[in-house]
């Protein structure tokens, strides 16, 4: 069975630091899965490309085709790597909007690894006090290590270096995925609720 790893990155720059971190987290996860005997394929969702679609969905109530595909990619994944730049002490707007638009229950019990980027290390705890509670609300199973990368981290090799934290986080996500059954996607339209039970419920 090939595991599906969805990588959600909300960076706005081209190239984007968030994408850079997301790719490293994805690679660490795939490597760790491989050592556990599981193959994985990675699908990247760049929210920058979906910025207009996100707003359109908020306004119209339905997802344009590209966004619908991205939402399905995340909902169907065995694991999700989600990376946002920190804006004003929290996740970016498009990052939050994407989670607002996921179907109810899409992340329930799903292993998720969090990452964030910012100019300086002073924003690092935003992952813990802003991003992690969002995923807790959505009932995701979030890896204990969330990886924050400031600009300077891309040059550092000291203790607690980025590469070590990335490797540990990838291990944690892989451990959450390995041995789990593939997510069964509930299709509300495929299995209708029987009307007699609806009537009796009232």
């Amino acid at each position, binding site marked *: 069975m090939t595991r599906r790893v969805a990588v959600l990155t909300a960076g706005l720059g081209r190239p984007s630091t968030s994408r850079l971190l997301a790719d490293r987290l994805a690679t660490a996860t795939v490597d760790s899965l491989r050592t556990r005997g599981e193959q994985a394929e990675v699908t990247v969702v760049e929210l920058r490309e979906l910025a207009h679609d996100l707003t359109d969905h908020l306004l119209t109530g*339905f997802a*344009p085709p590209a966004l619908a595909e991205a939402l399905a990619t995340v909902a169907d994944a065995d694991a999700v790597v989600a990376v946002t730049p920190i804006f004003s002490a929290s996740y970016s707007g498009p990052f939050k909007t994407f989670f607002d638009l996921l179907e109810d229950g899409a992340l329930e019990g799903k292993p998720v690894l969090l990452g964030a980027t910012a100019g300086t290390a002073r924003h690092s705890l935003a992952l813990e006090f802003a991003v992690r509670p969002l995923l807790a609300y959505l009932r995701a199973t979030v890896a204990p290590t969330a990886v924050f990368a400031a600009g300077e981290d891309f040059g550092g090799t000291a203790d607690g270096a980025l590469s070590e934290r990335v490797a540990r986080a990838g291990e944690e996500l892989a451990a959450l995925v390995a041995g789990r059954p593939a997510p069964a996607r509930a299709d509300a339209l495929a299995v209708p609720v029987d009307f007699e039970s609806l009537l009796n419920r*009232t």
Partner: protein
Amino acid sequence: MQIGIFTVGDVTTDPTTGRTPTEHERIRATVAIAKKAEEVGLDVFATGEHHNPPFVASAPTTTLAYIGAQTERIILSTATTLITTTDPVLIAEDYAKLQHLTGGRVDLMMGRGNTGPVYPWFGKDIRDGIPLAVENYHLLHRLWREDVVDWEGKFRTPLQGFTSTPRPLDGAPPFVWHGSIRSPEIAEQAAYYGDGFFHNHIFWPQEHTRRMVELYRRRFEHHGHGPADTAIVGLGGQFFMRRNSQDAWNEFRPYFDNAPVYGHGPSLEEFTSQTPLTVGSPQQVLERTLSFRDHVGDYQRQLFLVDHAGLPLATVLEQLELLGEILPDLRAGFAEGRPAHVPDAPTHASLVAAAGRPPVSTVHAAGDDVTGRSPEAVRS
């Protein structure tokens, strides 16, 4: 095949002039639009129900009765009747009365409503939306079919020995459609009773409509009402047409760009490609509309939203004239290749005929008018 229009009764500023019609103008315009619908040969006029500005669509049976008095043929319907927050006893009374006044030209479409505060304004909780729709409709269904009803539920005062008056015309309750965009429970509800299922269809991709209708058809058959392709399906739609396609795009664009529902969102080009909205020549509207069958199968009712986004009355009436011009081709197109066993939407006449009894204007209950006791209680 029934072809008609539905309105949500919104009071919207015309973005090209900045002028907002008064409530009075909008209410009178609604009547003019309904009369024009009959004049151009349409089969159905349906009004929404809202209890908040900027809508004038409260008191739907008042509007429909007034229109009914000035029309001869057109079916008067709703899009939708709020089955969640409206007392089913009042719905039973109001629409049975409307049947009598209009000679049976009445059906209804049930909906839950999407304005949050309406629930608390009417003493309900939006989290009970589905259970309210289920319980209230079950009571309504009984009130129209049983002369004396003893009933107890979760959401309403119990009824003992209650007879809803007037009784349905000729003993035939109005046909009911259930409208829902995305709740499978409502498709299931429609299938359970063998009622019609209507998909609004206008804000969502066709694939979604297809799946909801497919679920309803499958469950219609499951509940023993006949083969799936004989289930009663209705779709919404919207268009803006001018004889010259480019004129339609140019004229409609500012209305689309500022429309209350989808304005300031997707482009007109995106929206017309992703949803059934068709902007173009009458021929293009004709062809697109006939393509809906490819997604949902042969169906029974097509309603268009025409008076929206602040379009002035004169423009709406012109749109109806154009719709009237393509109506024969629409009818011919829908008839083409339609299997003989696919039924038309039920009407009062067909329901009376199907009941197999002579028209009886009133079915009397034997209860006591003064004490309200049921016949059983009186007998014992």
